[in-house]
């Protein structure tokens, strides 16, 4: 008798079918004090995402939508860049484009897309990575898209220039998440892009959800995983495609998420790519311009049963605050979001009843961020959810893919509890969420959130937790005054340690606040801060009073090599 994967709990590639008629309606929630307030409309953030879906189910429609938080005019306030899909129908002329919102302060935003010239109407956008690639102290924007990515250089006068072709970073693949990082430690930001599949409209297929309703396909239906792309920054405003020479052509996957960090403490940033329904890749930096995929032996390619899951968004997070970055990857419903705990560069798929993955089982996760939203000294978790196929549960929204997002309160030591209503707002926001980014939009020391929702308005979530602990924030800058991507910070406050990394390009198709934030609980002072700069030098700073944002510039602290275990 043949064995078919019947009742494959937690590993079925397709989602379950619709069951609208028998659903019990939207769940009722007790009224509790909210953590966030949805303020998009009042704040003039009127971005509405458009997938362009009409009748056929084109798979890019299901994956699009990212957001970047960047202070493009260096006025000290984070601005918001929202990436739109648009339309895959070539006959559509007035495609919805990306939008850039200038932060005016006091929770007011002004749309400046036209002046900034970043709409990108001629591409189908997926996500973005923000970084200062040319080291001029201004944040630039790299937008990923279907078969064409765009690099917008910040001109410093409120405008951007599309320098994609002259910089040589068009790519031509279907880019999803991207990340700036300095892999060869030459002080210039290189660029890696996770590519999904080789796809075109005429390769689209007819697929069905469980139950047989027409629906989006799984990437595995196309059997065309894409090679990721690595660009080396030449330092003259141009990049060289080094994908093959670096060895990234040795493994393909349906890449959706990417994060770059030093996972084995050898001082060199590595690349982790989350693949959808295929083993993930952990490209370990060999130090000679080459990378080797060691995900399988290092334990983060598949789940602990050896099964490849639908990796979407990624958070590289030091959950146990011991100086090693763990990996948390969002997945399909029933698979559950997964935590791989890092021990000396080797990962263990850790499932615990109070772990961060457990409450995610009923949802399909995309964007994800760990941050200390309530400033109690423990990292919390926000996950942006939304199905990719019709599911069993209906949350009362018109959109059959919509789900509530998840907010988990960190209890310390890797334990979490769910904050209800789901997502921490007065009423749960039910939408098909994709990319999300976190940052302090009003510089009040509390982390706010922006969420992009497929075919829906973006959510601007203002942190309104009343009983917050103390906090401190740092803007880590390299000697040229650019964001020190890859720097590692350890803050000591009242006997507690706060480890943070400057790693804004992570999550799903999104770019977070590049500044680092620590919740301090009762501590009113940080006794000492030690920073390991990307070039390996270590410096100490401090003490610092809580409740302030500080700028830490490379080569201005007290040299203290060897303090951090790197």
């Amino acid at each position, binding site marked *: 008798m*043949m064995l078919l994967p019947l009742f494959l709990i937690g590993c079925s590639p397709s989602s379950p079918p619709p069951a609208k008629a*028998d659903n019990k309606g939207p769940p009722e929630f007790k009224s509790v004090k909210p953590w966030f307030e949805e303020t998009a409309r009042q704040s003039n953030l009127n971005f509405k995402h458009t997938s362009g879906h009409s009748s056929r189910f084109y798979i890019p429609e299901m994956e699009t939508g990212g957001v970047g938080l960047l202070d493009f005019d260096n006025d000290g306030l984070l601005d918001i860049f929202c990436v739109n899909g648009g339309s895959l129908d070539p006959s559509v002329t007035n495609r919805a484009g990306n939008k850039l919102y200038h932060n005016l302060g006091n929770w007011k935003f002004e749309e400046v897309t036209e002046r900034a010239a970043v709409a990108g109407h001629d591409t189908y956008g997926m996500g973005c990575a923000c970084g200062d690639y040319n080291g001029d102290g201004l944040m630039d924007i790299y937008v990923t898209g279907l078969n064409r990515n765009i690099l917008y250089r910040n001109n410093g006068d409120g405008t951007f220039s599309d320098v994609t072709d002259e910089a040589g970073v068009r790519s031509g693949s279907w880019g999803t998440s991207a990340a700036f990082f300095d892999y060869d430690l030459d002080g210039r930001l290189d660029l890696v892009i996770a590519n999904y599949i080789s796809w075109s409209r005429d390769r689209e297929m*007819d697929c069905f959800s469980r*139950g*047989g*309703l027409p629906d989006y396909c799984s990437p595995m239906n196309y059997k065309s995983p894409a090679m990721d792309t690595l660009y080396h920054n030449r330092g003259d405003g141009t990049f060289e495609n080094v994908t093959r020479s670096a060895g990234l052509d040795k493994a393909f996957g349906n890449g959706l998420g990417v994060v770059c960090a030093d996972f084995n403490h050898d001082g060199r940033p590595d690349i982790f790519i989350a693949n959808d329904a295929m083993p993930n890749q952990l490209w370990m930096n060999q130090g000679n311009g080459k990378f080797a995929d060691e995900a*399988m032996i290092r*334990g983060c390619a598949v789940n*602990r049963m050896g099964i490849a899951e639908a990796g979407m968004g990624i958070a590289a997070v030091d959950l146990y605050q011991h100086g090693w970055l763990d990996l948390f990857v969002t997945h399909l419903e029933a698979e559950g979001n997964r935590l791989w705990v890092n021990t000396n560069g080797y990962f263990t798929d850790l499932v615990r009843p109070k772990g961060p993955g457990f409450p995610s089982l009923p949802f399909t996760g995309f964007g994800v961020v760990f941050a200390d939203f309530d400033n109690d000294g423990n990292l919390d978790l926000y996950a942006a959810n939304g199905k990719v196929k019709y599911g069993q549960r209906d949350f009362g929204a018109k959109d059959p893919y919509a789900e509530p997002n998840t907010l988990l309160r960190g209890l310390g030591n890797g334990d979490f509890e769910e904050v209800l209503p789901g997502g921490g707002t007065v009423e749960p926001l039910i939408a098909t969420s994709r990319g999300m980014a976190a940052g302090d939009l009003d510089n009040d020391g509390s982390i706010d959130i922006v969420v992009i929702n497929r075919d829906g308005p973006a959510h601007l979530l203002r942190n309104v937790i009343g009983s917050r602990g103390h906090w401190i924030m740092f803007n880590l800058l390299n000697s040229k005054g650019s964001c020190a991507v890859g720097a590692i910070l350890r803050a000591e406050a009242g006997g507690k340690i706060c480890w943070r990394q400057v790693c804004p390009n992570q999550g799903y198709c999104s770019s977070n606040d590049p500044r680092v934030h620590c919740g301090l609980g009762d501590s009113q002072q940080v006794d000492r801060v030690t920073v390991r700069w990307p070039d390996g030098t270590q410096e100490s700073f401090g003490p610092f009073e809580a409740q302030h944002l500080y700028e830490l510039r490379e080569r201005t602290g007290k040299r203290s090599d060897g303090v951090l275990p790197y």
Partner: protein
Amino acid sequence: MHWIVKLSRHKAGSEKSLAIEKGTVSDEDRRFVVAWLSRPKHLLTLAILATIVFAVWHVYSKRSEVSLTIPVPADLDRLDPQLRAYLQEKLDWVREKPHDTNRQATLGIVYAANGLWERARDAFRNVEQLDPNQPLASMYVAVATQELGDLAEAVRMYRDLTLRFPDFAPGYYRLGDASLRAGEVAQAEAAFGRLIALAPKEWRGYAGLGDVKLRVGQYAEAAQELQQAIQLAPDEKMAHHLLGLACRGLGRKQGAEMELSRGLNAEHYPMPDAWSVTAAQHMNLLPDLFDMAKHYSTTGNPAKAVEILERALKFHPGDKGVMNHLAAAYNQSGQPQKARELLLRAIQNDDRNLPAYIGLSYSCAALGASNDAIAYASRAIELGTNNPQSYMAKANALLAAERDTEALAALESAYRCDPRSADIQMTMGDVCLQNLDRQTDALEHYQLAVNLNPALVSAHVRIAQLHIERGAQSEALKAIQTIRKIAPENPALPLLEDRVNKLASPKNNRD
């Protein structure tokens, strides 16, 4: 109307038996009954019979009291036509006898097999009501609950199940598996321990216990349990993967790499039970039908694959996927002519149907039309330059045309598209060895294949053969040792051992 018991002599049998019949009683019959009843043995038989009749009546009347709703998907009319037809047939069948536990259970499995878990749960609940002593019903209510995303509730239900049915092995498997998913290690350990006691031949018990040991950092104990699991089920990838993790924990990197590669592409199959083994026959969704057809084709039963897909085509007459899969099944079942006809129709509907061109290339090659085969493969490459299958098809067509060097180049292109494919390297090695007589190149390809997949036995066998032929005894022995370790039952092993021994013997050396 009244019922009496009539005893009658069965003409065919020597013994008298009891029968129930509606009718009247004659004097002769009455006398016979009295005489029959006067014997204690007969009285006892009668009492037993009466008890049985009462029990049957009781169960039947209880079932009749049970109020059942036959679960029907709300959007039945929108479902896949083949599934809809099948569901309607099954629903009619259940409606005939709604209190029949077997029919309700079958309906539950039908829904489950097609991913309709809400309705499956309803049907399993019906079975639970009809027959509270059926552990599978309660188990599948919990399975459906788990599938619907409520793991905590499912774990609770599995726990209850094992308390109610302490000797029901699948219940412990489910409890152990769900507990591991929930991170409840102690509960999982107890469940797998009990599963091993109840079903000592079930590999999942040992694998589960191995996983438990891994989670608590007892790597040596984990490896022991997992080796036991592999002994019972040598091909279970999940057990190999877990053993790889145990080896890694023990610092045995080489062993870990080997086991992890043997565990690559693991899938999770729950412990089979009386209901789950029937599920495949109820699957009606195209992706499942494609998988099923592929399975039959690759396990030597392409005729069955053709049967499944021809039926699917009736419900989905213009579906590209069905046509392409059916054509592949035709090709594999030795009917390339049928495949070609079907695929020519498919590309008439869509001249950019890449898989159709690949299929056409294979069918033309099988029909001896090499030029057409090459042309169709080239068209597939045009349509999808990154698709390794297109290059593989071209290589196949070129080999059929005896253009071996070009075939090797096509395989190289395929490998560039899929650099993780040990199989492509293996094929390249075979072409070098068998078609081009390039032993050194062949050996390189086989080595690359085992670098990509250290558990690829066929490549190790070829490497051993080549080394023997070249007189490289120690390299041959190394390859043989690997085969012995990963596939001790491989039929090539004795032959290779014999050849390598001869290579080593003084006589051979003299020769």
